Structures are given as C-alpha cells and as structure tokens.
C-alpha cells in the first residue's frame, strides 16, 4: 500500500540494500535468491546480501509499497512453484529513479570540485 504522502524526499537517501533490490527488480520480476544473485553479480561479489537482511528489506519495501508480491509465477524456465516473486511498483520505480538522480548529482558535485576525476 503506497503511502498517501508520496513525497519522495521522505524516502531519500535510500538504504543501499533497498536501492540494490530495486535495481535488481528494474528489468525482471525475481524471487529472493535471484535478487541476491543479481546483486552479487552486478557488484562483482562486493555486496552479498544475507537471506535475513534481504527479507527484512523486502518486508519493509512491501509495507512501503516499493515492491509487490506476485500472485502468478513468471515462466522463465528456472521456475519454482513455491517461490515468491517480487515486482517493482511504479512508486518504487519513481523512488529508485529519484535516488539514482540524487547519486548522480552527488557525483557531479564531486567532479566539479575536482575531488573525483572526470572519468574513473
């Protein structure tokens, strides 16, 4: 249930786990372990979520309406009937985009001051 007051600012900055989960769900509906794998793959194994922290984050994100649980199972060949699949909500997408923009601005600021080179 998205909050009535959907001012994005209240959610920013996002917790890094939340942001990673949103990114993992951006192009795919996924189950929990798939999310963990996707994050690990994208960060070259730098970030490995534990099941306990993953599901705490998922619990919170469901409450906040950033993601939703799917009733049906997507047919991607790798399916397991018992697994729960999650999908990013339009609100979750808005939040993820807002967070990405925030990070972008931060990086731009850092570049403008010369703290960070123009190209890493």
């Amino acid at each position, binding site marked *: *249930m998205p909050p009535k007051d959907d001012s994005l600012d209240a959610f920013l900055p996002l917790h890094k786990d939340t942001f990673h989960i949103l990114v993992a769900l951006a192009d795919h509906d996924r*189950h*929990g*372990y798939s999310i*963990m794998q996707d994050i690990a793959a994208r960060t070259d194994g730098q970030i*490995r979520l*534990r*099941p*306990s*922290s*993953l*599901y*705490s984050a*998922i*619990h*919170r994100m469901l409450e906040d309406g950033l993601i939703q649980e799917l009733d049906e199972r997507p047919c991607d060949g790798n399916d*397991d009937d*018992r*697994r*729960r699949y999650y999908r990013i909500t339009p609100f979750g997408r808005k939040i993820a985009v807002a967070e990405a923009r925030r990070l972008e601005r931060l990086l731009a600021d850092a570049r403008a001051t010369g703290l960070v080179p123009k190209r890493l």
Partner: protein
Amino acid sequence: MRDRAPALRVYRGLLWLYPAEFRDHFAGEMCRALADCLRQRPHPVEVLGLYLGVLIDAPKERYHMIHQDVVYALRTMRREKLNSLVAMLVLALGIGSTATVFTLVNSILLKPLPYPDQNRIVYVEEVSREINGAVAYPNYRDFQDRNRTLEDIAMFGSGLATLRGDIEAERVPSGSGTEALFRVLGIQPLLGRTFTIEECRLNAPSTVLLSENLWRRRYGGDPGIIGKTIGVGSDQARVVGVMPSGFHFPDVAELWMPLQFDPKHNTRMDHGLEAIARLRRGASVEQAQDDLRGIMRQIIQEHPTENYGQTVNVSPYRERDTQKVKPVLYTLMGAVGFVLLIACANITNLLLVKASARTREIAVRGALGASRARLVRQFMVESVLLGLAGAAGGIVLAWAAIPALLALVPEHLPMWIQFTPDARVLAFVTAITAGTAILAGAVPAWSASRFNLVETLKEGGRGSTPGGANAWFRNGLVVAEVAMSVLLLAGAGLMVETFWKLNSMQAGFRTENITTLQTAAPSDRYPNGRAAIELVRRIRKELAALPGVISVAGASGVPLLGRWGRSFTVEGAPLLGVKDAPIINHTLVTPGYFQTLGIPILQGRDFNQSDGKNPLVTIVDEGIAKHYWPHESAVGKRVRYGPPEDNEPWHTIVGVVGNARNQSLRDLRHNSVYLPLGEYEWASIAYLVRSAGGLADPAKSLRARLALVDRNVAVSRVLSMKDVVTQSIWRERFFATIFGFFAVLALLLALVGLYGVMAYAVSRRTHEMGIRMALGATSGEIRGMVLAQSGRLVLAGLATGTVAAVFLTRLLETQLFEVSPGDPKTLVTVAALLAAAAMAASYIPARKATRVDPMTALREE
C-alpha cells in the same frame, strides 16, 4: 540435500526469533534462499555470517514491528484527542491515588528501619490493666541479668529539655537512655562517644549527647564541642558526643541524657520508662517473649505485692508503633484499589467503544493480512501507552499529594518514617501500570480481533451490532463501577459522620478564645514547692495583665494533651483490689481553672490559694459524685488515690464540677478529679489564658510577658484550645478527608463511565430513535426510554454496592464513633446521592436522543 538438513533445521530454529507474522510470511523463503546459498559451498566464515545475520536482523524486525504499532497507536490517539486525554486523566487519577497510598504503606509498614540489622530490634513491654507498656527499673535489671535471648536491653524515655546559655532558652525534644540504648539501635556517634555505665549511675556528673542538627543550629557546628559544658535544664552538662545526621530517637529527640536510677524511687511499682532490646542472632521474637515471660513469673513469685497481673510482651520495634494504623492503611489501600478498578473499568469501556467504532477499519486491516495476534497487540500497545501516560501523570499527582496529606498530620512523625519513593514504590507503580494496561486492554483487544469480515463489511461501516456480548460486558462494567462507588461513598460517609460527631462533641469545657501554653522552669531557681507556687502566681498575674485577657489558670496539663491516670478508692466503699479499682484522670489546677475553662462548679467551692498539702482537698466531677453518692452531696466525703493497698492519705472533697472530656473526645469512660497545684511538685506547668476575642499573635505576646517574669522559663506549644481539640481528632479528620476524596473520585469516574456507555448506546440507536420519532414517539418518551435503560444499570449497581457496603464497612468499625457500620441513614443518603448524580449524567445523552432528526437518521441508511 540430506547433508544440509541439520544446517537447515538449525536455521529454521533460529527463525523463531522473528515475530510470528514475519516468520509466517518469510520463513519458507528464507530457508530456500539459505539452501541455495549453501549449494554454492561458501567459506565456513560466510556460512557463520548467514546464521549470525538472523541474530542481528530478528531483533531489528521485532523492534520495527513494535515501533510501527506505537506509531499507529499514537496516530489513533491523536485522532481521538479528547477520548485519549480523558483516558489518561482517569488513569493518572487511579494510578496516582494508588501510588500515594502505597507510598504511605511502604514508608510506614514496609521500608526497613534506618538501623543496622533492624529486624532484631524489639520492644519489651510490661502489660497489665494499669501499665501500658512501660517497664519498672528493677524488672528491667532482672530481664537484663537473667535473659538468654537478648544481646542487649536498654531503657529509654522522652521529654522536653530546656537549653540555657548565652542565647535565649529553648525547649527541644529530648531522649534519655541507659548506656546500652545506642548499642541496641546499632548507631555510632558522629563525634565523641555515647554514654558509659558510670555516667548512668546515680549522681554521676551530667553528660549530654547532641543531634547533628542541634549541634549545627545552636552551636554552629563547633568541632571542639566535645568536653564543653552547656546548660541543660538547671544543670551544666558536659557534651560527650554528637549523633549522626538524621538520627532521632525516640521520635524526634534532638538531645540525649543518660538515665540515672535511684533504687529508692525507681521501685517495681514505678512504670515510667520504655524498654527496647536487640535479639541475639538466631533468636526469634517468640523465643524472647517466652524467655522474658518466664523471668516475669519468677519476679512475681519473688515480689508478689509489687507485681500483680503483669505479663511481658515482646514485639518487633516497628510493629508497636504501627499496629494502630495498620488496619487503617490496609483499608485505605483497599479503597484506593477500588478507585483503580473503577478507572480500569472506565478505560476498558472506552477502548471497547473505540474498538466497536473501528470494527470496519480493523476488518479491512485483517483482510489485508494483519494477523489476529497483530491486531490484539495493536490494541494492547494503545492501552499500554495510555497506561504509561497515566503512570507519568499519577507519579506527578502522588508527588504533589503526599505533602498535602502530611499537612493533615499535626504530630511529629517518628524519624524513620520518610515519605520518599524508593525502588519498591517504583516497582509497585510499574506493576499496577502494567496490570491496569493489561486489564483494561485485554477485553477490547480480544473482542476487536473477533470480527467477521463479511458481516462487518456488509453492515456498511456501522460497526458491530449494539447487542451481544460486548454490550453485556460494557453494562456489567458500569454496574460494577456504580457498586464500587456506593461502597466507597458509604465508607466515606461513615468516616465523615464520625469526624463530624466528634467535632461537634460537647467537650465539657470552653474551647473559644482560650490560648494554652506549656512552660518549664529551672528547678535550681525554683527548688521547693513554695518558690514554684510563687512563680506560678507571678506568671498568672503577668499574663492576666495582657490587654483583653479575662482570666488565667495554671494546670499540670492541657485537656486532651496529657493524661495522668491513677486508681481511686472511696472511703467506706468496699476495698477493691488494684485490678478492679477504677482508673481516674488526674489534673493539678490553680484556683480559677474551672472559671477559665467554663466548667461549672455544681457543688461546694473552687480551690483557693491556701489549698495544698494540708489539709488534703480534692474536687471531683459530676460523674463520680453521681456514681458514688447518688442521693447525697459528695462535698465532705473522702477519697484516696493510688493503688488501694498503698494506704495513701485521704483527700476531702470540697467541690463537684461538670464532666469534662480531659482524656479524649472519644473517651466516655474516664472520670476526672482535680487536685490543687500546690500538693505536688510539677516541673512543667501549662497555662490556659482566656481572653475576649482571642489574643493577637499569642505566641509572641505570651513569650514576651513570661520573659518579664523570668527569661529562663522556657515556653513551648502555644496553641489555641480549638487547635488542641482539632489536633486530638486529627486521625478522624485525616481518614474522613482521604476517604471523602477517594469516594468523590470514584463517583466522578463512575459517572464518566455511565455517561460514556449511555452516549454510545444513544449513538448506536440513532436509527431506531429516528424511526420511533417518525412513527410519532414524543421527545419525552424517547428521553424516558434512555433514562430507563441507564436507570436499570444504576439500580443494579446500587443494589450490589449496598449489599457489599453492609458487609465491608465492618472493616471500619474500630475507626467509627457513635455510628455503626452499615448505618441505614448513611447508606440511603449515599444511594440517593448516587442515583441523582447518575440520572444527571445520563440526562445529557437522553436529551441528545430527542434531538435526532428522523429524516437524517433514516437517510443515513
């Protein structure tokens, strides 16, 4: 998979750390994710991290859930501000009252005394008809020498000592004791030492111990005070020690002198001092009592004429001082318990009403997946929050109430009674807060979680039906509240009546425009009877010269403040044994005493200046005269005081005066006799000053006048006679006030409860009322319908409460005066008062019911 099964079982076990709701939803997923992780054969450290993660994340999840419930509850409370405020106030009053009374109970009955190993300190009392606890010195010596159960035994006394010196004379409460006293109490001096055995011998040079407070106040905390001499009474006494800060014994003593006994005077017949002892390690109070009773039996055999009918009681130190107030404190605790229960019932009702009103919201939450446990918890969180706010308010109330209560106590409380809250009070407040929250929240939480989703949603948001178990329960609560209020009001009514009866009691003496004061003259300057009598005459003359003063009398004591009882024998009447001889109140008085106090002289004459030792004369009261000489004049008859076998000299009756309640307003049994002041040497003389319209600033003007006679005469306790009377019945006033307060509180809370239930019932029946009015019911009929409904509840409560009151007010019996428990007049008054107030409280919702617009009510459907 098989080799991973134990690992998964452990993990599944750890998941119990999560809240049930979370576990139900995610446990399977988490286990599958763990199995997937383990399939990758991670490093053992990583595996450990997977398990440890649960230990870190599960408590966070629990915290998160509680936090959410608290936020939700706060939001609901904010939405219903007025309801929540009323609930908090009700709880604050309930918890505050209970905490206040418990603080009293704790301070008086539970807190450990400020003495090391205080459980071993006991009072030793000799008890017979004439002796009320005091111990004779030779008996004390026998106890000391022969006992097998005491570590030490000491005698002590209390009084007032006059301090003299370079600055103005001052009377301070004093104590005296044998050298073992401080050992028995286990208290070491701050400076110097306590008394030695030699200092307690007869005619030993005078020594004195000071309290820390007196040492600082009067002697500027002089570190070299030890060894210096100060003026105490008519003596110069050497200071041997200063006691530690906060130590006062007995009661409020500020200074101590050694007790010196004279075997010639301190006989086995002389019971003037008290005894206190420290039990040997391992000895019980009962063993000590058996031991001393055995010794007492030996003493009686050895000295049969001097010890008659005595026995020895040994009791824990605290108990003797508190046994009188114990039942009263427990009764108060019971009364305040009812107040708290009424408050609880109110909150339960309020939450039930709220739960009913929120049925639809709760049903929707349930439909969206909130478990029943979650819904119950949300309600409980709300009642716990209300409880916490109530407790905070209650603590503030108790903090303010205790000094207000103490202001009603005119006496010096013993130093060990400290009304400061401690861990026990804190634990008690926590316990009653938790208990209240659970008691008040459980039923609403349970009832709210029992929704039927389909039915509720079908009802179109009107909530559950008004009938059913909920309504019965709410009505039951109101009946209980009314019943408990009746009980408290009945108790309060009886206490108020007792106080009122005592207050309007005819004391037999004038109380208006009389000022009383106590004095002490230094015995070295006024050594013999003649000088002391002359001093009294001069003081009377000087005080009489004050503007507005009509007459002044001196006496051995002020009525109701001190008592001196002895047995009494009439010449010619059969000689009674000391066990059966009546005990008569004695007062030494100057001429003019009866005139000053307005006590009528019915036969014979007043004393005159020449009355004294020769011939011995006395004045008796009407009660005695009528009892012994019903058909003739008592004047000229002879009576004798003291134990009948003593052969004390005969006194001739020269006058008969009206009865006066010298001992206590309650006491109807003790008659009084009066003796001329010159017959005995009496160190502390009281003066009674009667004036026209009272004296302006009596303490100052009387002291100034006395100083003109002799600066060394110390003055204390300047009180108006009215104050003396009021103080003598302070207990009754205290309990009437407290009971009255709790009863009014209970009544108000019950009315709030009744109002809430009726207002809710009316709001639920708007539709029905609309139809009735549309069909032609008049507003009078509608009003009558609502009032009848509340009338039934009130009547049930009144009946239950009255029956309970008939039985439970018996607990107050010992506190009552000239009114019996279950007094019909009181009960009828209480019932009428409550019924009227209850009807007034229901009238508001009833009137509201008549304002229902039929069209609006019907359209709402």
